[in-house]
């Protein structure tokens, strides 16, 4: 292992991240844990009182739980696609980013499905999905594919970590607690960086990267089919598959940028997460934004122009400024045009502004899922028997909002805890850039 020390970044640079115990850290964790505890209280209320405590009713059977599910899963799939591409394409500047993208992918992939459980009225019957599930149903495809994806995704993150874990196991640069050393020793899988081990590890990573990209694309598409294969207005669209893929990538790249921004600022990682990384990912973000805008325009324009009865009703609802008009403007104009302008115009292209643009994108993409799902459900094809206002219009209850913010808190909790154990940046350049360096040396 010592032979490869030169291949690592300076571990001391990450001492603050791995070992800081300041007041801010405690307050941060305390707030996050409080949010999660409140979430458990809300969950308990929902289990006791049932879905009547939520805003979901006969017509709007999916509320912000499904919005959160689509949002988190989309980011997860996007993270996996980015990680896979970074590994397979051997992009030279990937090392500081690949850990973040993969970490985001795994955490969001774990949180997203929780919201599906919240949508289920009888949680005690969840296992029915496996016993009585029918292969023709896209929901069953989603379940099996998602389990397969999560296992592969976690394995990919873990294998990317192995060299760093081995380094942390062997290093004396940091004063690590004994339990940490034991943990690193257990997780490092006897990795010592020998050529044979590097070969096996690189091979395994390439296989997983190759699998994860198509799986992620396929899963995002299946996710879109849950909506697109119904005949509901606003959902029954042939472009929903690629539309969802680019929506996921758009939100995913924005979240990665936000995390890069926060960690760089909080732990002074300017030497690792450089301006160049922000510029490169910013350009990727512009390209995705343009493609996503193109899909959005196609979707809404064809809905509006065809003026079919039900589509017209959904469009009228979405663009009604007394209902969802402002959200429509925010997600489709501010959420796309502002980030493009910020990254395109050199004077505006600061790291802070890119971070702000990314936050706008994330909020915009959450809103996008909201106005994609709720207005359609508020436009039922069948006549409404009982037309009480709460049956026709959806308003999320406090339980749903609390559980939404608890999910966000859980995301922050997990990323905080995991980044206390492993560096946010891939330390082992040797593994990822070995081939590139060898080629350079030979030339």
């Amino acid at each position, binding site marked *: 292992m010592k032979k490869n020390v030169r291949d690592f970044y300076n571990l001391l640079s990450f001492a603050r991240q791995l070992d800081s115990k300041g007041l801010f850290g405690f307050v941060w964790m305390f707030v996050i844990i409080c949010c999660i505890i409140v979430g458990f209280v809300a969950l308990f209320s929902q289990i006791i009182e049932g879905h009547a405590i939520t805003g979901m009713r006969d017509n709007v059977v999916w509320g912000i739980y499904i919005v959160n599910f689509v949002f988190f899963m989309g980011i997860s799939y996007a993270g996996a696609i980015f990680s896979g591409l970074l590994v397979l394409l051997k992009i030279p500047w990937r090392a500081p980013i690949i850990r973040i993208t993969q970490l985001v992918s795994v955490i969001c992939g774990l949180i997203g499905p929780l919201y599906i459980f919240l949508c289920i009225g009888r949680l005690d019957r969840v296992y029915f999905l496996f016993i009585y599930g029918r292969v023709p149903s896209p929901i069953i495809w989603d379940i*099996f594919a998602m389990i397969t994806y999560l296992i592969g995704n976690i394995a990919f993150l873990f294998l990317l970590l192995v060299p760093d874990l081995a380094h942390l196991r062997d290093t004396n640069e940091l004063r690590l607690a004994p339990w940490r050393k034991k943990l690193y020793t257990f997780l490092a899988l006897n990795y010592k960086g020998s050529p044979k081990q590097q070969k*096996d590890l690189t*091979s*395994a990573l390439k296989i997983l990267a190759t699998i994860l990209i198509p799986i992620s694309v396929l899963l995002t598409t299946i996710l879109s089919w849950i909506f697109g294969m119904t005949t509901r207005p606003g959902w029954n669209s042939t472009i929903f598959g690629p539309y969802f893929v680019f929506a996921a990538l758009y939100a995913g790249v924005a979240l990665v940028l936000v995390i890069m921004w926060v960690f760089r600022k909080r732990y002074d990682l300017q030497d690792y997460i450089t301006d160049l990384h922000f510029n490169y990912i910013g350009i990727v973000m512009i390209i995705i934004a343009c493609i996503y805008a193109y899909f959005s325009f196609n979707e809404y324009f064809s809905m509006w122009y065809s003026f079919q009865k039900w589509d017209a009703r959904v469009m009228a609802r979405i663009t009604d400024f007394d209902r969802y008009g402002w959200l429509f403007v925010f997600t489709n104009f501010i959420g796309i045009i502002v980030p493009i302008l910020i990254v395109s115009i050199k004077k505006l292209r600061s790291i802070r502004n890119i971070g702000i643009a990314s936050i706008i994108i994330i909020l915009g993409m959450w809103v996008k899922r909201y106005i994609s799902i709720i207005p359609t459900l508020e436009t039922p094809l069948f006549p409404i028997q009982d037309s009480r206002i709460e049956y026709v219009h959806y308003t999320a209850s406090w339980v749903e909002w609390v559980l939404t913010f608890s999910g966000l808190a859980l995301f922050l909790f997990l990323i905080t805890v995991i980044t206390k154990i492993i560096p946010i940046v891939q330390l082992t350049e040797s593994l990822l850039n070995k081939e590139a360096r060898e080629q350079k040396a030979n030339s």
Partner: protein
Amino acid sequence: MTKTINFKIHSIYLILLLLILFQNRSSSEVLNDSIIQEDTTATIDLSYFKVNGKSHLSAELYEQANEGNEPIGNATLHFYYQLGDSLFLINTISTNSEGMAICNLDGLDLVGDQEGFMKCLCSFSGNKQYSSARQQLIIKNLQISLSFQLIDTTKTIVIKGIESTGRGDQKVIDFTSVELFTPTLFGEMLIGSVEFMNGYATLDFPTDIPGDEEGNIEVIARIMENGNYGNLVLTSTKNWGKEFIPQMDMAHHKLWTTDPPVWMLISFIVLLGGVWSLYIIVFFKVRRMKKTGIMDINY
């Protein structure tokens, strides 16, 4: 004296000049009047139609020109029924832009003479532009019916033709041609042409005409421009055609069916199986990596 004579002569010239001028003006007016009075001859073509038992008179008003018949639109036509020497007005109808006017005879109990002839008349009173015109039509009231019968296992179309007389009795018809058609995409196809004998006309139904999904086929019997009976059309439908079965094999899948299509099962198993096989390969690679680490004492 001379002055007086000259004055008279000038006066006479003046009067003559004025007379000539007035004469010319009057001539042109007379000429114009003669053009108006020399009106165009209008002509009426009157036909009788009986379509599926409903009768009507169809009149076409036109002027004959060198370039062909020019329809006279917005002209009032009077339709009459003549019984003996008495004329009974049936209806007054204006022609359309094509010079056509249709007079419905439904609900009218028109009685023929003793030989069964009915006399109908259409007249145009004329106007400033066109002369008056009238046309008489003498027809017999023929009733035809279509039936489909299996005669010695042969599918046969039987058309029955009966004419009614003014005396109230009925008479079978002979030697009148009737043509049978079936509708096609862009027109009609002639099935056959037969003559009435003793009030009946029969035709073997072809066995190779495609019908709809249930084999229904529409048959149209036509007697056209017959001197006695006018134009008669009768349609009827029978499921004697070849059943048209769409060649498109529709996949009848439903989201709630319990059995998925085979291709879907195979695709699903192959895809999942492929991914899990690669996971197993990854697992063995990682296990080998772990074992190698134990043996690599140099590292």
